[in-house]
């Protein structure tokens, strides 16, 4: 009892001594190397996790949209693979990432007789698998929302399924899913915070460490919160800009001219 009242006294005087802004400045000044490490880890895991998740999504999306073969054996294999992908998607979308982290991290430790994965690669794996489940659905949606006429146009000229996908469908799919992919990245920047449960030094975990030293719960988490916001806000703006760039030029140049039929026809924009 005595100890606790002593502690509250100390805290009370500290609060009087140090104003809000002073505390914030102190937190940043004292802990900026840790905060920078947290930011770096958060961005690293979110970025790599989103990219690998997207690759998983594209791969599963492509597999799931292959037309069923006429060969019964191949058809059976295709169906089994599709069911496995569906199960993966359902499980990882239907459970919290925090719990997935623990299951994967400690499951690995259990299976290998106590070896734990290094936490950052473990975090990347967890975020990738989790994001992959969402991306699988996003990519599939991005493919099946493309007009059937695009497939038929390609097939009618003699392109096979793979040629149609790579030349016509996937470029349009990427454009369709870009906003959702950006969104997933921003979500991942925030959701890497759950990886503190396996001990990753991401931004939230850094906050956790800071308060153990200064006991300024509110100010510390507020600083962390603002940093998260600055990160997501900046990333959102940058991705918007990229989306706009990729949406392409709305104008085109008319080549040659009708009044001068001999005008040379310039070939451009073939990429």
């Amino acid at each position, binding site marked *: 009892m005595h100890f606790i009242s002593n502690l509250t006294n100390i805290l009370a005087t500290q609060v009087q001594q140090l104003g809000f802004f002073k505390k914030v400045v102190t937190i940043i000044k004292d802990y900026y190397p840790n905060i920078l490490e947290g930011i770096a880890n958060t961005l690293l895991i979110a970025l790599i996790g989103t990219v690998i998740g997207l690759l998983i999504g594209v791969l599963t999306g492509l597999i799931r949209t292959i037309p069923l073969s006429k060969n019964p054996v191949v058809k059976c294999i295709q169906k089994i693979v599709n069911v496995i992908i569906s199960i993966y998607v359902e499980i990882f979308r239907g459970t919290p990432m925090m719990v997935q982290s623990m299951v994967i991290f400690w499951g690995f430790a259990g299976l290998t007789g106590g070896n734990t994965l290094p936490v950052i690669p473990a975090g990347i794996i967890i975020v990738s698998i989790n994001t992959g489940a969402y991306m699988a659905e996003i990519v599939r949606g991005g493919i099946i929302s493309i*007009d059937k*006429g*695009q497939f*038929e*146009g*390609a*097939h*009618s*000229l*003699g*392109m*096979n399924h793979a*040629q149609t996908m790579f*030349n*016509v469908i996937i*470029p*349009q799919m990427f*454009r369709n899913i870009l906003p959702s992919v950006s969104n997933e990245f921003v979500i991942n920047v925030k959701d890497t915070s759950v990886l503190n449960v396996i001990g990753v030094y991401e931004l939230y975990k850094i906050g956790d460490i800071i308060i153990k030293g200064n006991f300024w719960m509110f100010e510390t988490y507020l600083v962390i919160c603002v940093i998260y916001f600055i990160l997501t806000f900046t990333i959102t703006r940058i991705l918007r800009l990229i989306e706009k760039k990729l949406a*392409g030029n*709305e104008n*085109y*140049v*008319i*080549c*040659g*001219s*009708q009044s001068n039929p001999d005008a040379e*026809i310039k*070939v*451009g*924009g*073939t990429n």
Partner: protein
Amino acid sequence: MEKIIELINLKKSFGDHEVLRDINLTLNRGEIVSVIGSSGSGKSTMLRCINLLEEPTSGEILFNGENIQSKSFNLCSYRAKVCMVFQQFNLFNNMTALENCVRPQMVVLKKDRQSATQFAIEQLEKVGMSAFINAKPNQLSGGQKQRVAIARALCMQPEVILFDEPTSALDPEMVGEVLEVMKSLAKTGLTMMVVTHEMAFARDISTRVIFMDEGLIAEENTPQEFFTNPQKERTKEFLARFLEN
């Protein structure tokens, strides 16, 4: 006359719905065949079966005497020789007009970019679209899109082009420009099968007219005979209804 495509007892059902009931038809080299008939009579389905966008339920389709459904038949190179032009154009939205014409040549015919581009520009010139090679499909009018789609088909150097109502999705003032292109193609000796509601085109350009009714070929004749002296009641009714409009 040299046969290119033969349909023998062709049938196609969607579930219980028998859309093509027994089609027998021969397409000879250099012919311009117009296919007319009321909506739902199976015209598109027949064309799509020929291009194998739809799998026939039974019957045979022969291309230069070869069964196109046999295992050893190369479907992709067949489709390049028997291309299709659609009512909705189906241009690739992610490519410019030029690239729409270049890419299929590179992918299917394995041409290099330079020669494919050269040939594509020639075809786009034929349809009067060489000024718009850098435009994306969504920047073109319907008539312009359809002309690019025709150029894209020509780029495959096909033996046959199948047209499925190529002018039906167009505003009236754009129908003419597409029909002009098709007329000029007809003069080159290209074999064409055209599903159309343009009776003037069927009468003046085609070498044969086919009237489809409820999944059957109800009447088949030269354009002169077909329009001046139709044999079947259904044909007369159909033509009468058309003349009213």
